[in-house]
């Protein structure tokens, strides 16, 4: 054991962050903004490699995602709507549009009730927002304040912001929290932290990326269905991310035929022109989840475990990263 470390002032406090997914990078930035000297260690060779953040949808949807999670998810997630545009200017705030086929209308009503938000639209209102959906749906819900981003670009923005503040990200760095020389260690290893968090489990998610010039969408769409819900998030260059399965499995193997068929089937039901789109990517991520499906900030000595972001990495990382920074350095004001 090393001797006691004296934390004279925040300006001199050193923090090691392990893991360069969205949790690690957001934590590193929030700590840097509070004046800490931060280093980030990542075992992969490049940004995003092996991180489930790389496979994320990138929807900042504190109302649509509330169902089943509770009001704290909305309250904490709203922070993301302010934080991401500051740190990733390409964040797009055009809301989310949820639609359902006539026989699944009850799913829309449930979403309206449980989200406590959402503006009802008729067919014309839907077409005004998304001309490609003209004539296809009679009822929809619009969540005007929600936003979306491309998670890969957003991770690069965070890494660039850290670089600009002189925070190094060391790749190929397989490190042990107990052996790092720093005043505080933030463990953001995701699923790899099961050695320290025995309740952590993996929940598999499969996604597809399509590319088409035939139809374009301006905002994330959700097609509600009791068994096969689908979301579609527009990306640059006519690409569309389709997601995502939620399978109780920690297996990271390739996308299954069933998952691909279900996602494509739902996409086809959303718009038949998608049947002609090119499949440009099949993605698998295994989300780190705790039993309550909410993130944890668990401090044990100088090590804090920041984990369990489950399906809500980009939505919840900003709130938890700032809570972490306040917890470690309560007296210091953040300077963004």
């Amino acid at each position, binding site marked *: 054991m090393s001797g006691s470390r004296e934390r004279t002032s925040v300006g001199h406090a050193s923090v090691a962050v392990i893991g360069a997914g969205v949790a690690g990078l957001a934590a590193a930035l929030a700590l840097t903004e509070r004046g800490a000297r931060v280093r980030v260690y990542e075992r992969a060779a490049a940004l995003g490699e092996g991180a489930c953040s790389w496979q994320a949808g990138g929807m900042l949807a504190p109302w649509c995602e509330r169902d089943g999670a509770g009001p704290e998810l909305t309250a904490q997630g709203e922070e993301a709507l302010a934080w991401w545009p500051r740190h990733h200017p390409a964040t797009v705030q055009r809301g989310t549009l949820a639609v359902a086929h006539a026989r699944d209308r009850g799913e829309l009503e449930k979403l309206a009730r449980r989200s406590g938000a959402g503006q009802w639209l008729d067919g014309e209102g839907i077409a005004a927002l998304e001309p490609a959906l003209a004539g296809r749906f009679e009822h929809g819900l619009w969540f005007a304040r929600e936003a979306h981003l491309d998670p890969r670009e957003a991770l690069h923005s965070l890494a660039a912001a850290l670089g600009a503040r002189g925070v190094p990200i060391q790749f190929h760095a397989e490190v042990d929290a107990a052996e790092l020389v720093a005043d505080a260690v933030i463990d953001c290893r995701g699923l790899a932290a099961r050695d320290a968090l025995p309740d952590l489990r993996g929940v598999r998610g499969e996604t597809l990326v399509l590319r088409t010039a035939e139809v374009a969408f301006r905002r994330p769409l959700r097609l509600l269905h*009791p068994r096969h819900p689908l979301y579609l998030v527009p990306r640059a260059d006519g690409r569309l991310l389709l997601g995502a399965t939620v399978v109780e499995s920690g297996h990271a193997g390739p996308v299954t035929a069933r998952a691909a068929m279900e996602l494509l089937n739902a996409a086809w039901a959303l718009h038949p022109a998608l049947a002609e789109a090119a499949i440009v990517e099949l993605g698998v991520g295994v989300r780190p989840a705790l039993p309550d499906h909410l993130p944890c900030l668990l401090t044990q000595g100088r090590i804090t475990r920041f984990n369990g972001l489950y399906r809500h990495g980009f939505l919840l990382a900003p709130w938890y990263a700032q809570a972490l920074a306040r917890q470690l350095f309560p007296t210091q004001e953040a300077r963004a």
Partner: protein
Amino acid sequence: MNPLELYGRRFHSRLLLGTANFPSPERMTAAVHAAQAQILTVSLRRTAVGGEAFWDQVRGLGTQVLPNTAGCHGVREAVTTAQMARELFGTRWIKLEVIADDDTLCPDVVGLVEAARVLVAEGFEVFPYTTDDLGVAARLLDAGCRVLMPLAAPIGSARGLSHPCGLRALRAHFPDVPLIVDAGLGLPSHAAAVMELGYDAVLLNTAVAQAGDPEAMARAFAQAVSAGRTAYLADPIAPRDMAAPSTPVLGMAVLA
């Protein structure tokens, strides 16, 4: 109250719960406790690889696990899934689903009878997910099933008893076979109605898992199952077409 007996095992709870589609394992655990459920179904089809962490959570609840073959479309697929379930959970129990159609999730009763025969021969104790068809029920019993699980309405539909006469006829034809309604219930009143018909138990999943408050809904269903069972045992009065005054009317003034 007399216990529920299934393949020689006894249970005081007559509410079985499925474990799919809860908002989180923590809320599933709370619902299982609120329901006082002693039997939990677990789906294997999609989680056969890598599902250990979730199964451990289910096992940790200390209840009897009833693995199912949900999502299987043919005899071979269902049999293989059942064999896998026996290995993984160390139980001979299997809730047998052979699905005919992915949209309606209605059972393929022909495949069901065939798969039941194969599995019983391999030593399984089979809980077949079936319709209220009396002929199919007889075939399943011939195949060696000792419990039947008819649907009340399509899976996840929350419609309640779509064909109460059929369920009543099944109960009347097979008075000694444990009958468990599986699928289609949405409200506690549906569960109470099933139990009032003399059914032995109900199995729920979506109605609890997808409720806004799964724990509270599980408790409400447990109360309804208990109320319905108590009412059945209390020998309800028969319905009549005319009023049946509870005091004599002879000698009272005749109202114009």
